[in-house]
């Protein structure tokens, strides 16, 4: 029985990880289109990626857009989560549902709504518009994750701080914030990935000057099938291993999700 379970677990893990192996493997193959298993080791697709100014530009835009949106979403989301968990607000359930509603909308519907709204105020094809749209999309995830981590937070710690003479701000910055930090970081990491990955809404709102990496990749694969895309993906996977995993294991655990 235990053996069968192990086999099943192994199969599930393989199923989840297989695309990553295939993508990474094809990035190093010499044929002009991705094949698996790859033949003849080469780094030419990485050169091609770095040598392509459009893709490099797209990477820069995506990173900047993700960073700004994450900063905004994390601030708004943390404060919203604190208010929702801590204080007895009238209509708390309604507010909570409203704040989390962007998760439930189909992305296309949301994108159309934003397009119509942004056209009125002249925000389409602007960086500000994209930041506003991404912040809207990713804030609910921050709220959810911070709320989950605050649910374990013992409110008597804040009372203890006040009892020891700490003002409201000292209590917040020395006790509440440090203890909520794992949840906030989890939210931020998640939010950045969501933003970095976003295609549908960005596609409708971004102009020709604001092509993010997902849009470039999307366009690229429409007329070319060389493994440059595999090379980009491999770079992103390595970046996640180098930055994301250490942050993840240091501050976050499954219980925060």
């Amino acid at each position, binding site marked *: 029985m235990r053996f069968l379970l192990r086999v099943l677990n192994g199969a599930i893990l393989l199923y989840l990880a297989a695309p990553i192996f295939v993508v990474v493997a094809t990035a190093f193959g010499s044929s002009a289109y991705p094949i698996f298993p790859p033949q003849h080791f080469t780094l030419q697709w990485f050169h091609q990626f770095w040598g392509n100014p459009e893709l490099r530009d797209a990477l820069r835009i995506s990173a900047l857009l993700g960073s700004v949106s994450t900063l905004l979403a994390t601030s708004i989301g943390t404060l919203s989560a604190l208010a929702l968990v801590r204080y007895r607000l009238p209509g708390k359930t309604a507010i909570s549902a409203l704040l989390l509603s962007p998760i439930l909308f189909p992305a296309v519907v949301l994108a159309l709504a934003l397009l119509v709204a942004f056209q009125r105020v002249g925000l389409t094809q602007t960086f500000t518009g994209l930041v506003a749209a991404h912040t809207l999309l990713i804030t609910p995830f921050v709220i959810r994750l911070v709320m989950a981590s605050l649910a374990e937070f*013992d409110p008597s710690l804040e*009372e203890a701080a006040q*009892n*020891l*003479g700490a003002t409201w701000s000292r209590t917040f910055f020395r006790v509440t914030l440090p203890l909520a930090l794992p949840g906030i970081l989890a939210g931020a990491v998640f939010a950045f990935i969501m933003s970095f990955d976003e295609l549908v809404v960005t596609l409708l709102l971004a102009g020709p000057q604001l092509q993010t990496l997902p849009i470039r990749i999307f366009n690229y694969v429409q007329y070319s099938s060389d493994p440059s895309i595999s090379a980009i993906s491999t770079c992103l996977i390595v970046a996640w291993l180098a930055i994301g995993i250490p942050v993840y294991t240091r501050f976050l655990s499954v219980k925060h999700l």
Partner: protein
Amino acid sequence: MAYLTLRKLNKRYGATVAVEDIDLEVAAGEFVALLGPSGCGKTTTLRMIAGFVPPTSGEIRLGDADVTHLPAHRRNVGLVFQNYALFPHMTVRANIEFGLKAHHVDSAQTRERVRSVLALVGLSSQEDRYPRELSGGQQQRVALARVLALKPDLLLFDEPLSNLDAKLRVQMRQEIRRLQREVGVTALFVTHDQEEAMTMADRIVVLDRGRIAQIGSPAEIYDRPRTRFVANFIGTSNFFEGVFLPGSPLGIFRCASGLEISIPPEIVAASASAATLAIRPEKIEFVNAKAPGSLPGAIRQATQLGSTMEYLVELGSGDRVIVHEQKRPRVPVRAAGEHVRIAWHPADCVFLQSEKERSDDRV
């Protein structure tokens, strides 16, 4: 001189009364226990004094100052929480320094105070540990050291021993009392554990449904309870409902069952005609058949309490009486079914105030 004064303190949540007309004066250096079952308002009272719950009405005075409306962080009142509430992301030292920094104590004095309170609670070697690395008893000491470092005007304890195991609890009772005496700080100790209150406190305040039922020394509370609630909550009592018979020279109390009990004559004059009489189980003894005024009965149940035995005795009148008897060397314990005679001294009877009016005005 009263150091902490509560005057007509009230707390209502909508229609629910949590605390009602609490009047209390605590002298400087005194250790007072707030005792009662859960929901009696003892924790709400404590939280009002700490500044976490605003009173609906009434006044809280500390020394000469009215602190009723002072925010929690401006009251120099140290609170030891039930779950200790140590900051999990700080070491023992940082936990203790937290309050000193909030009060802008300079660094040389901070070091000195941390050192001295850690020595006081016997944790000098643990200052770089995190709370999760300490045992429950050690966490308790850190919580105590953390508030003592601020030299508080008043120490509040919110059931601080309820998370410890039985042996440690008894040890920490003495430890807390020793520290409180050494520092000379006034203390208010909330507990639902009557034994804790009896062994630790100079005075006990018994709370019943938001009101003070009785204030007194542990001996007064135990030996002279004023209401049936107090007599029942602290220790065990036998209760007899009945009336005083007028005109009898010795003083006779007749129960509904027909049982007649001799009582000190001066009580008859001082009391209303209908009353409740209480007698503690250990004040009743088994006597010889010929002893005058003794009551015949049979043991229905014998229960081991450790060093004492508890007997349930059914009297001829049908009344059932609990009797506690200390075990003695080479004397066998009694068994169920045995026929006995019991007696007590009339002076050990306590007459309780009627609680009727109390329950009527609460409907």
